[in-house]
């Protein structure tokens, strides 16, 4: 007997009676059918938001950034708040696909494809904000290391703002490559099943002519492993560099060494929340509850409570250090954060990010789907306020009391933000319709170890005595050994 044994203590990753063909059917058939009414409603609503965003941005470019609420004291406002928020959300995809691959977390297989897609779309949204914040957007290419039209003057490689350009563009490229190299075999599956001419042609192109020889798969696994190894420090570096935008400055409230780890934890926190928001709905609409199980959602909720607690400790550490430094500027900055005119944003952040995720210590709540969904949105609201607190309430009362200011966004800024939701969800709806939202070949790879029906077959082994168990396991091993190394 050939056994692939995994303890019953571990929940099955795939529920129901599945075989390889059923897995293909379940995941690919939504692509082959017509989308439901909900899909059309959601898709056209997203397109409408996107168009409104394009209108708002065009308005800002035509009339200039004077149409925004930002002023000389608070120069970054909603724009950079949204940038950091979207980049942070993007981190969950790479964390799931890369770090959990290195940690051999089997449950990542059900959610990695959708999470990576989300990463790519979130980074696309994030990239818009610094670009359109330039105002004279036609000069945006000046951030590239090209000698510009005024002579061989180069960008400043010592500046965190330029590091950001490199970090975000590298992150986008590498995530895209990682994602697509996993998609190629699944596109080949859709191509080989295709009944219509157009689908055969389109997925034939998208699958790059993949046929899945033993050598192809060997290289594919080597590639995935190395890309995971590269993406792991990359994902940490990206939000570290984003935090350098603040931490390398001398503004009280920004000038702290805690920023890089605190930003990375916050990014993972908000990213997992966004993954939960999307997957709770996706699994329901595409009937993938047997692949994205409650166990998957619970695992992500555990990550949320962990990273939420890290973020909470970071907030408290900031407060402690500002008092411990006995620096007037530091102490005032934090006092105004808590009790100044923007007190509501600080307390919204504290409630949503630190207090409410603690409810996830209760197992019943971690496994409750409506509660998970609500919490995932609460967390993302909280993380938006975190960035708002950092960006606005560190700058609104600066060194000269005469320049103290208050900031409220104007409609083009709000429209821009809504427009990125439009971009994000337009991409996500297209992804959910035309792409396999679960990595089919990876699910097949774990099916015989972690599938519900295969685990049930091992039930007899659970009750076997130690001697019987060893005998069966050994016999299975012998056979495999003989085949592989003979």
């Amino acid at each position: 007997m050939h056994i692939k044994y995994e303890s019953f203590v571990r929940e099955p990753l795939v529920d129901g009676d599945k075989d390889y063909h059923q897995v293909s059917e379940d995941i690919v058939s939504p692509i082959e059918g017509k989308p439901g009414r909900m899909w059309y409603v959601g898709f056209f609503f997203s397109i409408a938001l996107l168009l409104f965003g394009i209108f708002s941005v065009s308005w800002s470019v035509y009339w200039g950034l004077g149409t925004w609420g930002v002023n000389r004291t608070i120069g970054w406002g909603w724009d950079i708040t949204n940038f950091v928020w979207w980049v942070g959300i993007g981190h969950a995809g790479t964390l799931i696909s890369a770090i959990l691959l290195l940690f051999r977390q089997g449950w990542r297989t059900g959610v990695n494809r959708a999470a990576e897609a989300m990463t790519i779309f979130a980074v696309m949204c994030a990239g818009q904000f610094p670009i359109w914040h330039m105002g004279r957007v036609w000069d945006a290419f000046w951030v590239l290391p090209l000698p510009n039209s005024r002579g061989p003057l180069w960008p400043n490689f010592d500046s965190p703002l330029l590091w950001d350009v490199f970090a975000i563009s590298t992150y986008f490229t590498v995530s895209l490559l990682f994602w697509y190299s996993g998609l190629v075999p699944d596109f080949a599956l859709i191509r080989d099943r295709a009944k219509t001419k157009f689908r055969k042609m389109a997925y034939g192109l998208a699958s790059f002519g993949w046929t899945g020889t033993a050598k192809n798969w060997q290289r594919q696994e080597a590639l995935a492993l190395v890309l995971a190894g590269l993406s792991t420090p990359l994902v940490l570096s990206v939000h570290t560099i984003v935090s350098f935008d603040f931490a390398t400055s001398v503004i009280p409230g920004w000038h702290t060494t805690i920023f890089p780890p605190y930003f990375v934890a916050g990014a993972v926190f908000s990213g997992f929340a966004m993954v939960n928001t999307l997957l709770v709905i996706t699994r329901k609409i595409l009937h993938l509850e047997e692949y994205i199980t409650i166990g998957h959602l619970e695992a992500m909720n555990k990550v949320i409570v962990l990273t939420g607690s890290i973020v909470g400790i970071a907030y408290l550490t900031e407060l402690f250090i500002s008092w411990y430094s006995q620096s007037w500027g530091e102490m005032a900055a934090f006092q105004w954060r808590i009790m100044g005119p923007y007190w509501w944003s600080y307390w919204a952040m504290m409630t949503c990010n630190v207090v409410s995720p603690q409810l996830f210590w209760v197992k019943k709540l971690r496994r409750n789907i409506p509660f998970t969904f609500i919490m995932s949105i609460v967390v993302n609201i909280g993380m938006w306020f975190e960035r708002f607190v950092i960006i606005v309430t560190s700058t609104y009362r600066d060194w000269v009391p005469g320049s103290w200011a208050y900031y409220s966004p104007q409609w083009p800024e709000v429209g821009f933000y809504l427009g990125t939701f439009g971009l994000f969800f337009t991409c996500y709806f297209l992804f959910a319709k035309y792409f396999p939202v679960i990595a089919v070949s990876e699910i097949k790879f774990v099916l015989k170890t972690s599938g519900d029906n295969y685990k049930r077959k091992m039930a007899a082994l659970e009750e076997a005595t130690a001697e019987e168990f060893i005998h069966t396991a050994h016999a299975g091993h012998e056979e495999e050994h003989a085949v592989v190394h003979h």
Partner: protein
Amino acid sequence: MAIKKFAVAAYDDEEVLFPAVHKVRHSGYKLHDIYTPFPVHGLDVAMGLKETDLHIAGFIYGLCGTSTAVGFISWIYTSDWAINYGGKPHFALPAWIPVTFELTVLFAAVGMVLTFCYLNQIMPGVKKHVFHPRQSDDLFVIALELNDHVSETEAIAFLKSTGAKETSVQVAEASWWYGRWDKAEEYEALNA
């Protein structure tokens, strides 16, 4: 580019596939390739394939990225256009770490993926013969290369004896070519 004749067997279980691979290797038949719907661990060893060197290529690409970044920035800041940023040193290596790191990762990842595509001979527009439409779904397919000295019927009988669920003889292009997947090739008519 060569059109060849193949004896093809499809198996529906890895546990049947592994002994079959073992028998094929000792039978004297020329193994063309094995197609599977997902990575089957141990299959490369069972077939006697070497471990891939793709990761070494990745390391070399990474080094190229590192040296490009350090070389480029230090050339700009020390000789091409040495700007004085608030009296800071021109050769400010620590400040270049982020860009150097990003370019290392970027070069390694892009280089590896391109090498991966090249070695696997995959690209948009590339077409290859699919021996069984379910080889990407739930079947494991072994293709043996036949020539004039090998009997078709014997090869098929041998494959059946290894537990194959389906067998067939196919004439097909052994390599890749440019083509559209919705268009049948001429030699596919030979199989009909």
